[in-house]
């Protein structure tokens, strides 16, 4: 399956391409008072309201600031996701579209199913789904649904 990779600081992470609706650079983000601080705000995507999660704050590291290089991944909602056939694993996001604000995107890579490893128990993190080996690097594949769940807790 193809994965779109991106950086949080210097750590490479990835999201499965089929879970992505689109990637954009310049959305106008409307901050929402009272929302959890990991949420940058809301955007209007062709009439849809999408919540934007700041990946830096979600991982409790430095906040991702809007820059020339920062990007927003808009993820499909569950019903959009159902239309995608031929998945290597069962994808889940959430009933609503969410966006993830990342500092910089990298290449699209192809990782075969046997290249996906479960996250070692000692570094288990609710956002992590798999660890993938690609060339000499490890890429953590994220589980988008958990990111939103966490905020709902």
């Amino acid at each position, binding site marked *: 399956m*193809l994965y*779109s990779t991106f950086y949080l600081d210097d750590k490479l992470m990835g999201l499965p*391409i*089929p879970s*992505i*609706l*689109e*990637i*954009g*650079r310049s959305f106008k983000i409307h901050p929402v008072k009272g929302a959890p601080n990991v949420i940058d705000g809301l955007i209007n995507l062709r009439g849809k309201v999408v919540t934007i999660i700041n990946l830096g704050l979600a991982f409790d590291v430095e906040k991702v600031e809007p820059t*020339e*290089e920062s*990007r927003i991944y808009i993820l499909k909602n569950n019903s959009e996701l159902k*239309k*995608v*056939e*031929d998945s290597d694993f069962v994808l889940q996001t959430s009933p609503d579209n969410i966006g993830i604000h990342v500092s910089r*995107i990298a*290449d*699209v890579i192809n990782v075969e199913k046997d290249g996906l490893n479960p996250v070692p128990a000692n570094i288990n993190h609710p956002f992590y789904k798999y660890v993938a080996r690609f060339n000499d690097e490890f890429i953590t594949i994220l589980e988008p649904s958990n990111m939103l769940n966490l905020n709902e807790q």
Partner: protein
Amino acid sequence: MKQANDIKFNIYNPVITYEHRAAFDQIVSQLQEIFPICNHGKCKALEVSDDPQKQKQINDLMEKVEFFSNSLITITRVFFDQLYRAKEGSSQSIARSTAMIKTAMIERNLLERTCDVRWWALEKAFSECITLSNNSSTGIKNVNNKSQDEKLQETKNKTLDPELKTSVEFACRRLEDIRNSYTLYRDLVIVNLNGIVVANSNENRRNAVIGVKVSDEDWFKRALKTKDGTEYYVQDISSSKLEGVDSLIYSTAIRSNGNEQGEVIGVMGVLFDFQGESQIILNDYLPQDSNASTLDGWYSFFTNLNGIVISSSDEYAFPSGSMVQLPNKHWSLNSSGEIFTSTTVIRGKRSLVVSSKSEGFDEYKGLGWISHLILPESAMFERSNDKNNYGISPQELMNSKLIPDLNKETYKKIQQNKGDIQLISINGIILATDLGKAGTSFIPIFDQITATGNSTTGTMEGLLSEMSSDMLEQNLKALENFSKQAIDLIDRNLFERAADVRWWSTDHVFWEGLMENSNEKYDDASKRLGIINASYTMYRDLIVADLNGRIVASSKSVNRDKLKRMNVSEHSWFKQGIQIARSVEFGIQDVSNSDLENNDTSLIYCGAIIENGAREGKAIGVLGILFDWEALAVPILNGVLPRINDQKVEGGAAFYVNSKNIIIATTADEIFKVGAHVDLPEKNLNLEPGEAASGVFELNDKRYIIGSSKTQGYREYKGLVWSAHVVRPME
């Protein structure tokens, strides 16, 4: 973004290097390959999906890719233009400042000459000799129409009255003393009212010069018309009966009793070694090969008001005395200080020609000369071989203040386009994935687009980092050039001070005073010092100390009482001076605090006052001259501060450092404080005489680029191991 027709350096411009043309071709051909790929994509869209919305999405993406490819092609053109404009700009600004420094050097030198001639004309030995000569019926005869043999015969058989003979001998001796102290003159003559040369300084030319009638020469006629001792005349380079070569003659009237307001009794003429001096100036700042010959295509020369070459670094290409072979605008500059630059073919090479008209210096208005500097166009765009990156990443360099904003914008634009293409490709892949199996055929198309985008922007980033390192090199070169100007100007000035002190120490008032040791004579000496100080504005004070270090005379009456109570026997300048046994020697006390003055630092020159006014003998006292060093140094430093388009760069600074690495003058007292030990990289401080260096250093968490030059001395003046430094902040 600029339109294509604003582009000066297109890829066909001959100055574009082969490597750059190849890089350009590669970028453009890669980008052009994207268009058929996009067309292929558009066709595929119809094959893989019946959904018009999906088809449109794919079409839109392909069109966006086409748009950004086009935009990148335009940016590439603009980028190459900017790259070469940036190089052109900084090369030109270095060439302009080099052309300017040459006029500045010659002007400053000529100004000193005007002080000299006016002062020397007051020497009593000359007025006495001329008076006798004017009154003598058996005086020196005109020998103009006689052969060399006849002249010799005439001189031998001369029946000068003994008093005049002694007086002429003494005048010649004093003229020789001047010439020995100031080595810039080929000869000095004094002329009586009939226009006949009575005495001269150059022993080797004496027989040929004495008795020559110069009454029809301009410098003589104009000097007779000067109103008082403050006036002088300069005769622009022209032929004179006094020499076989063209002369630059300074002249003024000799007045009765050596009094500035006295009646005109004769003329003093000094023949400045213009050719020798200008050769030094012209050959300076010209790059040389390993055999010390000037590189091909580099020329430097001066022209006068009529566009005639008066001195040249290459007598074959631009011979002196000929009309200069340059477009008119170069030699007919109107206003002083004007600079004209053009590109033209010189001796078969496309060259940059910079012409800079002198603006005079201080009171000296100059003769309207123009300094021309010619260099091959290829030299402007040469890549430096020095690939030192000074530990600075291309990114840091790109963001530094050394890179013009315009280039930064282009860089940003390239980054943006790269980002856009990447984004389009990924979104395309997402779209293709949504199409399921049918969409997989799109993936190679988008991969190709991503690869092209990465590769072209990668090449451009490489070029940008090359450009920024070139800009760094050129900036360093400019600072080196500025620091060299600063040290050269100071060396030349200090040479003059060394000449002054040597000459003044021979004045009869001083040795007579010390030998007689009377208050009356010391008062005369103080008066004499006072007159000198009034004519030469660059001294704070002048003092005479006796053998025991007691100050016996000084130029300023305000300080005199305090000074007379002082003993200077432990002062470095005094200790140096008292050891001197020859009038052609001098000593210097480096810039330091001195109790001779209240709060200022002084630079003190000293010369020995020798018994009986002999050229060699026992020192009976010391003349010390306290030079107003800061008044000279700070304006020079201000003049060499880094500039962009004639605007001073914020945070730029220049300073002089002495042999102990202590700052002795500065333009930025907050950061590079006078008296402070300066912390600079080794290679900028440990320079050989005449050597220059540049580099990057950090001070107070701020990064600077720096150019440094060590003194190379000038003529007999060897310099004080000082160095000049010019810095510019990077952030």
